[in-house]
């Protein structure tokens, strides 16, 4: 019996995980959100953006990270468009451009009056990672001569007063790789640009040293970070739209609890098995 449970067939484990994810999503189980300081700091940094400056959102991720990072993209866009903060959207990854556009399309349904070139500018993608960041510090118009839709950047009213990092209050990079460190090294260290990060839960612990040194102003870590930002946007009255990260926290909670339970169970059974072997 002991061996049977310890060697539980994989399909049973997969079934348990599937149920742990699906049931809370179907039941719409939402849990209270407690905002952590790194999320609050980033929210307040966006909030404090003056009219003369903009927020730069860089969607540096691909569709494999959609469940964690897409809700962050939507929440930040909602925040900026609702609070009338100018926002520039771009990506250092070619796959990230499509996600940024998807998020824009979704959020624009909620804010139909938001206008390209006046409230936001979609810059798109230019290859070259570090050189693109360095270029933004010198002249955004040179790195992105046209926006994603092909309009000359100089023709956009919003871009007439935005030229380089001096006109950007905070850069937010959403990523699931080490690309955030490129922003830290080239945007923060060279140009003293304030940088915030939205990252997957896996890489979030590696980002804390940059938070402590002040090289980053804030951090959204995984789905939990996204739900905290969503909650702040909702609490401030900026959006009453669907809060996908908060909805998914129920599924994440049950899955974590299931895995914790399974690890404890397997270790208890393992120690019983060892004791029995010793006594035999």
């Amino acid at each position, binding site marked *: 019996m002991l061996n049977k449970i310890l060697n*539980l067939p*994989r399909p049973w*484990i*997969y079934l*348990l*995980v*599937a149920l742990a*994810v699906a049931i809370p999503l179907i039941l719409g189980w939402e*849990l*209270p*959100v*407690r905002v*952590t300081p790194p999320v609050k700091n980033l929210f307040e940094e966006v909030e404090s953006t003056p009219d003369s400056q903009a927020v730069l959102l860089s969607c540096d991720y691909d*569709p*494999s990270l*959609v*469940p964690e990072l897409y809700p962050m993209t939507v929440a930040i866009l909602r925040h900026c468009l609702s609070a009338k903060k100018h926002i520039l959207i771009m990506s250092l990854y*070619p796959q990230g451009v*499509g*996600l940024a*556009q*998807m998020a824009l*399309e979704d959020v624009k349904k909620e804010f139909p009056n938001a206008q390209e070139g006046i409230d936001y500018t979609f810059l798109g993608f*230019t*290859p*070259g*990672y570090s*050189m*693109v960041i*360095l*270029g933004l510090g*010198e002249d955004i118009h040179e*790195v992105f001569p046209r926006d*994603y*839709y092909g309009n000359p950047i100089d023709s956009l009213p919003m871009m007439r007063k935005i030229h380089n990092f001096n006109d950007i209050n905070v850069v937010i990079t959403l990523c699931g790789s080490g690309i955030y460190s490129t922003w830290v090294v080239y945007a923060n260290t060279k140009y003293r640009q304030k940088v915030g990060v939205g990252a997957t*839960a896996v890489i*979030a*612990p*590696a980002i*804390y*040293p940059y938070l*402590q040194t002040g090289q980053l102003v804030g951090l959204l870590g*995984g789905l*939990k970070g996204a*739900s905290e930002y969503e909650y702040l946007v909702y609490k401030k009255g900026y959006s009453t739209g669907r809060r996908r990260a908060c909805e998914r*926290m129920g599924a*994440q*909670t049950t*899955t*974590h*609890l*299931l*895995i*914790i339970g*399974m*690890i*404890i169970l*397997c*270790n208890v059974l*393992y120690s019983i098995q060892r004791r029995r072997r010793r006594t035999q």
Partner: protein
Amino acid sequence: MRRRVPLTICLVCGIVMVIQFFVPHPISQTLYNEARRWFIIIASFTLILGLESLTRLHVNRVRRRQSGWGYSIITLVSLVFTAVTGVIWGIGEGSLFMRIYRYIYAPLQATMFSMLAFYMASAAYRSFRARTPEAVLLLVSALFMMFGRVPIGDLVFAHTSEVIEWILQYPSMAVQRGILLGVGLGIIATSLKIILGVERNWLGGT
């Protein structure tokens, strides 16, 4: 000659750009801006290189009827079809290109990554066992982190978030910082080796 020319270009560019960083003269600034523009242009060509490499790989696989050549046909057809729709009907809102991206590409990639959760749960159940004191330490901290990264942690124990933040800001960060310093020193050493021509793997071949 085939090796000496790129090595010389690398040496000259490397040394010039290092010196340029410390010289605020307008000529130095012009050089920096020009190098930056060149880099972006060269980076654009790497996309063409990638496209050519991908096409050649899959065309050869189909031609030689290697195992899984059917998937190569799907890759090539998808590549051409997506590119053509983007060029003909554009990539703006509601375009066919964006629909392919939103309803086919994005869900496929997200699904592939989501399957990790199933494998991880299975692997955790089978191999995450407290065999040694170090394994016990790892197990306890992992369980506590998993518990603290979901809202129920705060409902059970009011200060869970604070404890998790403390773990991330002190013990975890101390280790991360050590790793980062090591990586930083490694990057400097490797860069110097490349500039001075000691490290030549980037040239390809043996």
